[in-house]
């Protein structure tokens, strides 16, 4: 057996203030493909190297931020198991019908966790019409655009009671926690959590306001693509937050900036290979600058404080 419960975060729904401009960013700059539109005008997108129907939905709204994230379970039996465990953990679960608000997706279960974020789980999703080749496959079908984002990778969420969220993901989703950061009193400041070999499928930072998004991360091939992404940020007059830089935490190469609706985006490459039996890496809060931005070793206030 490989992965224990969830395979990966497979879907996020983002709120955007300007659909046209933000969609233009996602397709022409980040390089995702538009899959289609829902009846109510939301836009479905996916990376060129993703097989499933779509991985990102944009919803025009009067505030920026994140509606929900959804995790793909390995099979329908696992999905039911995860649902039962979620109920037993004490969260109230709602069932969302197949092919409803998210075309192509099977039945989903939805619930809210301690940090105020809405999480969903599903196991069935149609394959995309335009996915990667599988028979004597070429590396791509049409040349990747812009930053050449291959797939959605991870997200960093801000909210209260990260300790409970972490316990939920371990006990219910079968995830593990390769890396953490603790306050001097030993309490959790941040946790990097995964259900796969990626160093993180998601991460949390302790924060008083519930349900906040720090950033949504997309995967690039390598450090050179991260550098090219920096050029595209400049050429397209996007607002840079920090980078190109290297994380000591996760070891990824990275750059952060804001899309036109003000949600922070990261494009990321590399990272170590995580295994559930490896010892956990632990950061002291006073070393977090080095953990996040290894070259400068300095925290920048905008990075820690600004969320949507």
């Amino acid at each position: 057996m490989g992965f224990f419960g969830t395979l990966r975060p497979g879907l996020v729904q983002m709120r955007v203030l300007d659909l046209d401009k933000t969609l233009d960013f996602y397709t022409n700059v980040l390089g995702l493909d538009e899959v289609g539109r829902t009846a109510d005008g939301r836009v479905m997108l996916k990376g060129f190297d993703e097989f499933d129907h779509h991985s990102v939905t944009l919803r025009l709204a009067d505030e920026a931020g994140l509606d929900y994230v959804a995790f793909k379970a390995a099979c329908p039996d696992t999905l039911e198991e995860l649902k039962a465990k979620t109920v037993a953990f004490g969260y109230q679960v709602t069932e969302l019908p197949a092919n409803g608000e998210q075309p192509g997706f099977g039945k989903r279960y939805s619930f809210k966790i301690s940090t105020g974020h809405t999480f969903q789980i599903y196991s069935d999703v149609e394959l995309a019409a335009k996915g990667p080749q599988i028979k004597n496959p070429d590396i791509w079908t049409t040349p990747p655009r812009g930053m050449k984002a291959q797939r959605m990778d991870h997200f960093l969420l801000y909210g209260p009671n990260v300790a409970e969220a972490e316990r939920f993901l371990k006990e219910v989703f079968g995830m593990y926690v390769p890396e953490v950061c603790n306050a001097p009193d030993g309490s959790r400041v941040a946790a990097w959590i995964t259900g796969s070999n990626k160093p993180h499928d998601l991460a949390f930072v302790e924060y008083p306001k519930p349900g906040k998004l720090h950033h949504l991360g997309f995967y690039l091939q390598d450090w050179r693509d991260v550098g090219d992404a920096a050029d595209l940020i400049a050429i397209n007059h996007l607002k840079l937050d920090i980078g190109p830089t290297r994380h000591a935490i996760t070891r990824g190469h990275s750059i952060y900036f804001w899309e036109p609706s003000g949600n922070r985006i990261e494009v990321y490459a590399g990272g170590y290979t995580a295994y559930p039996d490896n010892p956990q890496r632990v950061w002291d809060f006073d070393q977090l600058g080095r953990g996040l931005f290894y070259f400068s070793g300095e925290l920048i206030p905008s990075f820690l404080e600004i969320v949507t």
Partner: protein
Amino acid sequence: MNLNIFQITVRETGETFPCKPDETVLAAMLRSGRGPFVCGCFGGGCGICRMKICAGEYEKVKRMSRAHVSEDDEKNGVALLCCVRPRGDMVITKLS
């Protein structure tokens, strides 16, 4: 004096910085290095540039997140400075 450049005054400190009619007040504040500038998303989403406009004409050029500026706020001159351009000299003030 260039009539196409407006002066933005920060009420608390009396500092002023110039702002062109085709740039946002936040962009001008960043360029001048003056004023209570905090760097954010420049997209109307994060709310870090929220201030009150006490005097002067301005134009909203981008949608401002309702999580940070309610309809009442907006009527009272509260704005995200990355979403507004000047139409004349302006006076702005910090909000708690």
